[in-house]
């Protein structure tokens, strides 16, 4: 046998995967990259909605130095998101430590309750605080009665204080859950070793325990910051005259149809988020450690009486306060009004009118969310499969671009899509179902993507190779081996996507038309009109749907919701 030594031609490849993989790539190009590029271009154009190539202007940015409204909005955004992040850490870390390390009753119950604030739509939280602490708020009313002899009155919820309070109580669970996880899973041997070497408890906490949970803490703080700076609903409802960047964007688009101006603000908003992300990565990467020890021992819990009482009381107070909104909307939904100490005029009217007044919104909400979830699941799983398994040259870029919407505030995504697909653009999508589905997909695909990518990275490639060896082609292997094995990850990513989309407000608010109104938009409108009973009843319906879905997933997959929500 003689064979020429020239390089043999490449092995014949199965081209199916490449055909299938091109679909998500094309989607990302058209609906993410192209709109983002247009947004950047528009940011440097004179204000208005015209896409004028060649007309260069940095007016959109100089306004941050000249206009007092812009200056204040930027300032407020900074103050709110930084304070919220700081407060969440102050509240969440001790709570995580107490639940993980102190012997107190009802830990699992506390962990489950502790996730509820982030499952509820944040703007619902905001308007319940209006009921409690608004101009005629229940608690405010009560406190004012109490404090009247001293001549003090409690300020209303509207403004900076309200936004910070409301966001903190909504977002502290991220820090709490992540800190709990880190404290609970830390290896006790490391701390015991410190103790044997003569270190005091506080010294051990400072030099061993705390540095080891820092990466989790960083991740939690980042999640809070990104959400706080991008949140639209809370400032829109209780910001009063205090604008922040997302509400400023809404104001530019909704008030003036000034897409170019909105694009400038959006770029600033994203730049801040990106900078904080970068800082967080730098700080955390210096403090990331691999666990070395092979054995692992259970953490000994504090069982001193004093610390147990302190821990229990602390956790209970935080939970009660952060769950007040849930209780409040349920009560409110059954009454006409609630201005004094007690609600007045029991009624079922708010519920009975839902079929007649909200059937279109309910249909739209489910239709849009389910469509977007199914498509995002397909897209996210495919991209995860490409980046994890095929490892193409641009895998890092693909990973970055699909994760980008994760840090993009909802209003920014809307502005980008409007930039690309409104007015005289080639594809005109304004006012359609399609543009909302696309915006949902762009924003939520990272959920499925992350979930599936994590699952794939833990899946030994030899499982798929074994199938190839046994004679199965790529598609057969994909269908019979890969998909069944990553199914749990696809499902949990999709459930998370669906539950967050059912309550989506910040993207929809700029994209909806009378035809495509959703339940959150209707709730927002009802709050704006002061119809709190109607808003409460609709919120309760949303809340029940979301809760049932999440509960069902928990039962089926036996996985804590917390682990699904703390992605990022």
């Amino acid at each position, binding site marked *: 046998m003689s064979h020429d030594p020239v390089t043999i031609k490449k092995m014949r490849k199965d081209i199916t995967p490449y055909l299938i993989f091109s679909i998500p790539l094309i989607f990302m190009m058209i609906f993410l990259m192209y709109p983002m590029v247009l947004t950047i271009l528009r940011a440097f154009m004179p204000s208005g909605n015209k896409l004028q190539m060649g007309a260069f202007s940095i007016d959109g940015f100089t306004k941050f130095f000249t206009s007092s409204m812009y200056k204040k909005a930027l300032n407020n955004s900074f103050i709110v998101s930084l304070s919220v992040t700081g407060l969440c850490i102050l509240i969440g870390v001790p709570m995580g430590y107490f639940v993980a390390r102190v012997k107190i009753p009802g830990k699992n119950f506390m962990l489950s309750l502790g996730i509820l604030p982030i499952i509820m739509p944040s703007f619902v939280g905001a308007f319940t605080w209006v009921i409690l602490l608004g101009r005629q708020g229940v608690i405010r009313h009560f406190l004012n009665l109490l404090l009247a002899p001293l001549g003090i009155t409690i300020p209303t919820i509207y403004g900076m204080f309200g936004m910070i309070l409301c966001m903190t109580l909504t977002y502290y669970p991220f820090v709490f859950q992540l800190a709990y996880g880190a404290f609970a899973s830390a290896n006790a041997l490391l701390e015991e070793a410190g103790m044997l070497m003569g270190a005091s408890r506080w010294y051990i906490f400072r030099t061993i325990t705390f540095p080891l949970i820092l990466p989790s803490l960083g991740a939690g703080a980042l999640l809070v910051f990104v959400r706080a700076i991008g949140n639209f609903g809370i400032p829109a409802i209780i910001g009063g005259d205090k604008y922040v960047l997302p509400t400023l964007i809404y104001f530019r688009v909704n008030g003036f149809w000034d897409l170019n101006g909105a694009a400038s603000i959006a770029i600033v908003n994203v730049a801040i988020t990106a900078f904080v992300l970068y800082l967080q990565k730098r700080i955390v990467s210096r403090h990331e450690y691999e666990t070395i020890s092979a054995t692992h021992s259970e953490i000994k819990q504090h069982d001193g009486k004093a610390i147990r009482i302190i821990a229990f009381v602390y956790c209970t107070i935080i939970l009660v306060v952060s769950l007040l909104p849930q209780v409040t909307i349920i009560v409110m939904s059954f009454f006409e009004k609630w201005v004094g100490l007690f609600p007045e005029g029991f009624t079922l009217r708010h519920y009975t009118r839902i079929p007649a007044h909200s059937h279109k919104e309910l249909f739209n909400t489910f239709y849009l969310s389910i469509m977007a979830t199914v498509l995002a699941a397909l897209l996210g799983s495919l991209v995860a499969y490409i980046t994890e398994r095929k490892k193409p040259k641009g895998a890092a870029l693909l990973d970055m671009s699909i994760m980008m919407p994760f840090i993009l505030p909802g209003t920014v995504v809307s502005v980008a899509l409007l930039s690309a697909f409104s007015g005289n653009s080639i594809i005109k999508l304004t006012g359609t179902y399609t543009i909302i589905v696309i915006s949902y997909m762009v924003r939520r695909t990272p959920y499925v993507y992350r979930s599936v990518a994590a699952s794939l990275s833990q899946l030994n490639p*030899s499982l798929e190779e074994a199938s190839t*060896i*046994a*004679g199965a082609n790529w598609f057969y292997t994909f269908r019979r081996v890969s998909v069944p094995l990553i199914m749990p990850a696809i499902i949990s990513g999709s459930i998370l996507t669906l539950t967050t989309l059912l309550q989506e407000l910040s993207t929809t608010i700029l994209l909806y038309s009378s035809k495509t109104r959703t339940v959150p938009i209707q709730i927002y409108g009802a709050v704006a009109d002061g119809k709190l009973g109607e808003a409460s009843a609709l919120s309760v319906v949303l809340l029940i749907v979301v809760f049932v879905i999440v509960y069902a997933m928990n039962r089926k997959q036996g996985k804590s919701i917390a682990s699904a929500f703390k992605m990022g």
Partner: protein
Amino acid sequence: MSLNLTYSKIHKIFDPHSKNPVHALNDVSFSIEPGELFCLLGPSGCGKTTLLRATAGLETITSGHILYGDTDMTSIPPFRRNIGMVFQSFALYPHMNIFENVAYGLRVRKMEEKEIRRRVTEVMELVGLTEELKRNPSPTGLSGGQQQRVAIARALVYDPDILLLDEPLANLDAKLRRYMRAEIRRIQKATNITTIFVTHDQEEAMAIGDRLAVLRKGVIEQIGTSDELYTNPSNAFVSNFIGKMNFFNATLVGSHSAKIDTTTVVVDVKPQRSRLNAGLARGSEIFVGARPEQLEIVEEESEQTIAATVQIIQHLGQVVRYEVLLDKAISLTTMEIDMPHYLSNVREQDSVFIRFREGMPFLFNREEQN
């Protein structure tokens, strides 16, 4: 029935266009006989797994040809090659029960349900899992050894032309490993399928393989039976990889005699035990190699002894191993010497003398031995 397997001038270069291309396989050519159980042995990173994966088609090769029988398989994708493979991790499907795991390759081949049932039952009998098949649990509920058997059954059930085993015993504990290697040999001989077994454990390779190939840095160093490799190693690397070899710095003084550096000891070896390059000049620096049992410890000094200090004494049962340190000019590492009996008046840290047993040592080129 069984096929032979031929490798012809295989080259595999990872990242050929980067600054540091890795030459994982370098001009590999050899043949495996029909029905042979062939071991690929070498330290990690030597290219043995790359060669196995290239045989399966899971890895492309840069140049060369791989033939199953007379058929060139080089450009055939893995799923058309009809091979069986057992992975280090077993790669059993957790979402299927053991019957479905084993039947997988038959379902791919769209066989009739009755035939599938017959074949799975038969192969499970062969690997000794008849009882488990009746319960038909998920593979996650099986012990390591049973999972291993399922993995082998799954690879054998569709009568592959070639069976590939990628460190299949690495995930088992020591006792089970010794048992399973005998089992694998039994099953392989029963089916008579040409088989390649990859391992980094020389004891395992020597115990299981009809023949072994020792690889280093992408190059085949030697191919032969266990006995050939142990008694007749072709170079210093193989000699110290298959069993232990002590190396003494020495100078060539005759066509096959050498003087150990800084001593008066001259070693004469039989001509067939010299591995020196032809025409090596007298005065060249070489190695004298001796296995632990080819050296002995003596208490009196003579012309044929080298001074040594005992470092560690280990009683290993059949032999007593003395680790001794010599003059730094002879070797920087300790020498291992196996004595049939414990020497009652030699303690650790004592000064002793060592001597070559008559005619036993090897001569090797001075080269990197690891």
